[in-house]
């Protein structure tokens, strides 16, 4: 609890320092809007020619996209700087964390906040709203509950994957290229139903469970699968497994890093 209090305090400081740069804040938000408009525009143009892609209509695809962006928005707001881990190590910033009497993880997480995530939230909510009304969905309570749980689980899943990638910097010195490959997977999973790319791709993004951000929950929520019963319980389980694995890798990494330095 003490650590949570410190974390909140650190985040507050980061937020204040971020808001010093108001122009950057605004261009950042606009950039996110442009980026998403471009992504959705390209899908729109592709699917404009014919009514569907691999059995998914335009609004199915927008729905798929929006679920990913919503999960991703919370991750990018609070945890995006996992991608910068190798810079923290190279510049010695991480060493400062190690000599203070607070968990280095808390210090690292509290170090930055990415307001870019706010742009993602705007895009995600708008895209979701459009898809929901255009598909004429009328959800019951359990569906809304599942939706909320799936979004939060997705955030945890993406954060865990990035956490593991960040931890590899303890061994490899660099983690940016791995993060870049992950960005590619993200992009594909975000925009297309994963079974479009064949069995192997589907296996990869299920083992690296990035497809739990949007694909599997969408199967349930759009009624695209007959065995949805057990899929309903899967996202939080996957999230729990991912974050545990990530914590273990991180601990091993820190131990190695601290010992090699001395």
């Amino acid at each position, binding site marked *: 609890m003490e650590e949570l209090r410190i974390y909140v305090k650190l985040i507050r400081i980061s937020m204040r320092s971020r808001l010093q740069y108001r122009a950057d804040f605004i261009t950042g938000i606009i950039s996110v809007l442009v980026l998403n408009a471009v992504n959705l525009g390209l899908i729109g143009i592709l699917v404009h020619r014919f009514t569907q892609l691999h059995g998914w209509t335009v609004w199915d695809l927008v729905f798929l996209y929006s679920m990913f962006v919503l999960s991703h928005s919370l991750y990018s707001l609070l945890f995006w700087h996992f991608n910068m881990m190798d810079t923290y190590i190279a510049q010695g910033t991480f060493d400062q964390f190690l000599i203070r009497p607070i968990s280095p993880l808390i210090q690292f997480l509290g170090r930055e906040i990415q307001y870019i995530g706010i742009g993602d939230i705007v895009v995600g909510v708008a895209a979701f709203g459009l898809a929901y009304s255009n598909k004429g969905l009328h959800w019951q309570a359990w569906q809304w509950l599942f939706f909320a749980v799936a979004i939060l689980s997705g955030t945890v899943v993406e954060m865990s994957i990035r956490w593991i990638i960040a931890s590899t910097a303890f061994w490899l010195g660099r983690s940016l290229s791995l993060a*870049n490959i992950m960005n590619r997977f993200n992009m594909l999973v975000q925009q297309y139903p994963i079974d479009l790319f064949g069995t192997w791709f589907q296996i990869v993004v299920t083992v690296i469970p990035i497809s739990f951000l949007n694909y599997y929950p969408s199967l349930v929520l759009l009624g695209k699968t007959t065995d949805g019963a057990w899929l309903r319980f899967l996202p939080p389980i996957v999230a729990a497994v991912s974050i545990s694995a990530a914590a273990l890798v991180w601990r091993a990494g820190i131990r190695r890093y601290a010992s090699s330095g001395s």
Partner: protein
Amino acid sequence: MRIFWSFARQAFHNAAIYRFDYWLQLISVFLMMYSVHWIWTSLYSQHPAAFGVNVAQMVTYGILGMALEAIFNPGQGPQMYIATQLKTGGIDTDLAKPLDFHLHMLARNFGEILFRFGTLVLPSALIGGAFLGLQFPASPVAAGLFAVSLLLGYLVLFALNFLLGMLAVVTLDIRSISWAYNSLVRFFSGQMVPLWLFPGFLGALANVLPFRSIYAIPISIYIGKLNGSAALEALIFQSVWVIALFIVGRLAWNGVHTRLVVQGG
């Protein structure tokens, strides 16, 4: 030309340190080529006649679009170097060099691009040809025009990136602007979706903007969608943009240069 080679050599040394990174980059290109292959094959199986070219041409288009990203990624242009140098103050030494700054940036960037072409684009094209259905150019003439068009496309991209670099001198931080810029380039250059599929207004807009010089024109020539006089017109379009953008870049540099000196002094 010697300057280009020396920068290419330097890029090689930098890359040789991180060999693991190199393999990851190659894997990442392969991943994208693979997925593009599936997207087009799947779309064609639904509507074979909807796209104006046959499936082999379209798959070639898509795969080439991904393979060329190693040299056509706007995120690797001189603007990033300029922004870093501004932040660290290293720009001083760049200005002190007995080499025109504009030319220096071109040499440095083109050297890296040559290196990336040899180590990333060629291997990806080989893999694409062997496993994913990337075809040879439509004809020997198309191959020749493609090479010219590729070079012109690179120069257009360089000139645009350089202008963004000039903006960095004024605003000091271009990170978030670059995101918007990169995605606009991606959209209007026809990397993912060929421009002839764009509807009405968007198609017309894409046709006048310089971005189609980057992926759309070279690749369309490669697959034979653009040929004969249309191909030549496209090359002229590219050349005009190269000249115009280099002049604008020159003017911008002259304007910004004095400002930079005043700031430093």
